[in-house]
């Protein structure tokens, strides 16, 4: 059987997950120029929120019916944590030097990991997450697991909704205005504090959706899962052009495909056997990032100020 369609599908699924998380980095950066390194942990708590909802449901509840409830549970937890972080950790530092909130974000990320580790029951090791039973679908020569359909549907739906929200609604246009010039936006009567909270909340909600996808895909959630995923999503956001929401999704998908194809094919190139395989895929992902940034320092789609939100 040919391997290429399967590797493309794997990359697409992984990339859609990176993209959804990357939205959070990109929106917050676009508006307050803060790299919220705690975002990976916002993603992680979303996964635990969804798991909690599932465990609270009566046994025998169908997973398909549980998914919307799990999304709601995950989104509520993620948004609460993210807005609390904005209110108590970042807002007091808004006028402080740029490095202060950055360090705060790293500290917050560690604190959230340890909090889940300490207080979530049995979270000291990975916890198993519900998965769909049944055989995978065969689409164009690739096997797609039933659970992976979730992320493949959720990612475009979320992107379309976000695009509509940012360009068509009053708050969305307020976001664009705040991104372009916070002071003028404030003078025009936009409540910038509220806009900033909205940016954190939307990013968190997307991260929670991605966390449900991650759980269904890997069958487990753990308190450390946010670190690597957060790092990759941040890379995706930079790759696509940080501050640009479509760039975040594109960057995620390019990164996911690059990783998948690196595992599949780099090792087949003569004299490159040692550089292929799973251990080197992250190296190739970052090589790609550097090459793109050398050619296009602003990222694939660029930080287009007008769309920055």
């Amino acid at each position: 059987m040919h391997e290429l369609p399967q590797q493309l599908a794997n990359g697409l699924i992984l990339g859609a997950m990176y993209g959804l998380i990357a939205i959070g980095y990109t929106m917050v950066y676009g508006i307050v120029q803060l790299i919220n390194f705690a975002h990976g942990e916002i993603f992680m708590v979303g996964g635990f929120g969804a798991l909690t909802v599932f465990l609270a449901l009566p046994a025998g509840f169908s997973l398909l019916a549980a998914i919307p409830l799990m999304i709601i549970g995950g989104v509520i937890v993620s948004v609460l944590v993210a807005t609390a972080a904005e209110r108590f950790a970042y807002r007091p530092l808004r006028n402080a030097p740029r490095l202060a909130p950055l360090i705060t974000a790293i500290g917050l990320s560690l604190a959230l990991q340890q909090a889940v580790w300490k207080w979530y029951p049995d979270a000291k090791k990975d916890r198993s997450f519900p998965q769909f039973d049944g055989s995978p679908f065969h689409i164009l020569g690739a096997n797609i697991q039933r659970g992976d359909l979730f992320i493949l549907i959720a990612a475009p739906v979320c992107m379309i909704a976000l695009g509509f929200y940012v360009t068509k609604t009053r708050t969305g246009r307020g976001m664009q205005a705040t991104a372009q010039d916070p002071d003028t936006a404030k003078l025009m009567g936009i409540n910038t504090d509220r806009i900033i909270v909205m940016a954190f909340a939307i990013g968190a909600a997307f991260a929670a959706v991605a966390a449900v996808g991650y759980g269904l895909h890997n069958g487990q959630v753990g308190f450390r899962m946010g670190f690597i995923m957060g790092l990759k999503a941040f890379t995706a956001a930079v790759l696509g052009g940080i501050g640009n929401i479509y760039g975040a999704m594109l960057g995620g998908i390019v990164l996911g495909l690059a990783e998948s194809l690196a595992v599949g094919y780099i090792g087949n190139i003569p004299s490159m056997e040692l550089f292929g395989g799973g251990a080197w895929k992250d190296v190739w992902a970052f090589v790609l990032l550097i090459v793109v940034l050398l050619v296009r320092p602003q990222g694939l789609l660029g930080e287009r100020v007008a769309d920055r939100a």
Partner: protein
Amino acid sequence: MRHRSLLILTTVLTTGALTLTACGSRDKGGDGGSDKKQTVVIGVDAPLTGDLSALGLGIKNSADLAAQTANKQNLVPGVEFKTQPLDDQAQPSVGQQNATKFIGDKTVVGVVGPLNSSVSQSMQKPLNDAGLTQISPANTGTELTQGDGWKTGNKVRPYKTFFRTATTDQVQGAFAAKYLFNNAKVDSVYLIDDQKTYGAGLAASFKDTFTKLGGKIVGSDHINPDDRDFNAIVAKVKNTGAKALYYGGEYPAAGPLSQQLKDSGTNIPLMGGDGIYSSDFIKLNKKAAGDLATSVGKPVEQLDSAKSFIANYKAAGYKDAYEAYGGGTYDATWAIIQAVKDVVTANSGKLPSGDLRAKVLDAVGKVKFDGVTGPVSFDQYGDTTNTMMTAYKVTDGAWKPELSEAYKP
């Protein structure tokens, strides 16, 4: 300035007071004689947090159980055994800090642990310099006892303080290869490891024996143990038509790897070493049925010598299972306790006042007793003389023993 001198004064006073009280209590202990017991501490180093904590907590509890049992039996009159567990988070740097802590605490006579060979590598030297006995229930890295030259037959013991109740990767990998080729009739294998000391060593020794037997390694790869998505590698494995996947590594990555393998429609078993022989492997992997693992010793449940261990473990009410290394840990701890007993007996029933660590080290090399996992004693490298291995298979959601055999090279 006045503040600073005040601070120094306070510090000096406090330190002095503490030293005095310490002296005082020691004097009292000496006076009390028979009714006041002297405390002997056995350090325990294992990952108590993080994704390997299932195995680590089993080690901590089993060591504690050995100390409790010795106290209950009043095995060494006048001596109260205590364990001091420290968390190494499966990280070499933390393990080394813990080793330093144990060395600094003069009541520690020996250390049980750690779980990971890579952590052991960073603990061996400081413990050796301090002459503090270390017995690992789980380290299988061959070079830990036989030096880097073991592959060429040039065996040199690098650290005289290091012992283990686990067998080496060399024995385990070879046993797995034999089982897979001779008993499970698999002749082509895809090989994956996680690049850690344990995983890479195991995979290398498996490959050696498997190719010698006439089996074929159809492909090999390395993964990052923190990853959970292996679909890209799985697609490669599928393409090679391998009949089994051998994984050198531990269950947190092995669980999803095995499941994704089967999800892709490749119905071949994943086989690993004692690092995947954990109930968590099955919990994290909905399609574990048919997967294989090897572990050291006979299944604890089958040994008469282990029945009281299992019963006592249950009775003590520990929250976590004893897991793969419970029996080995109990034996490792007991070896130190036995050594303390021998030292006390040789010193006419009293704990010697000086160089206790050196005497315990000397005695550990000579201990001989029937432990949970079978007869316990150490050879000239500090390796266990017990080379019994068992292959397990996941059947009906649990590890079931398939074959037990004493391994002969």
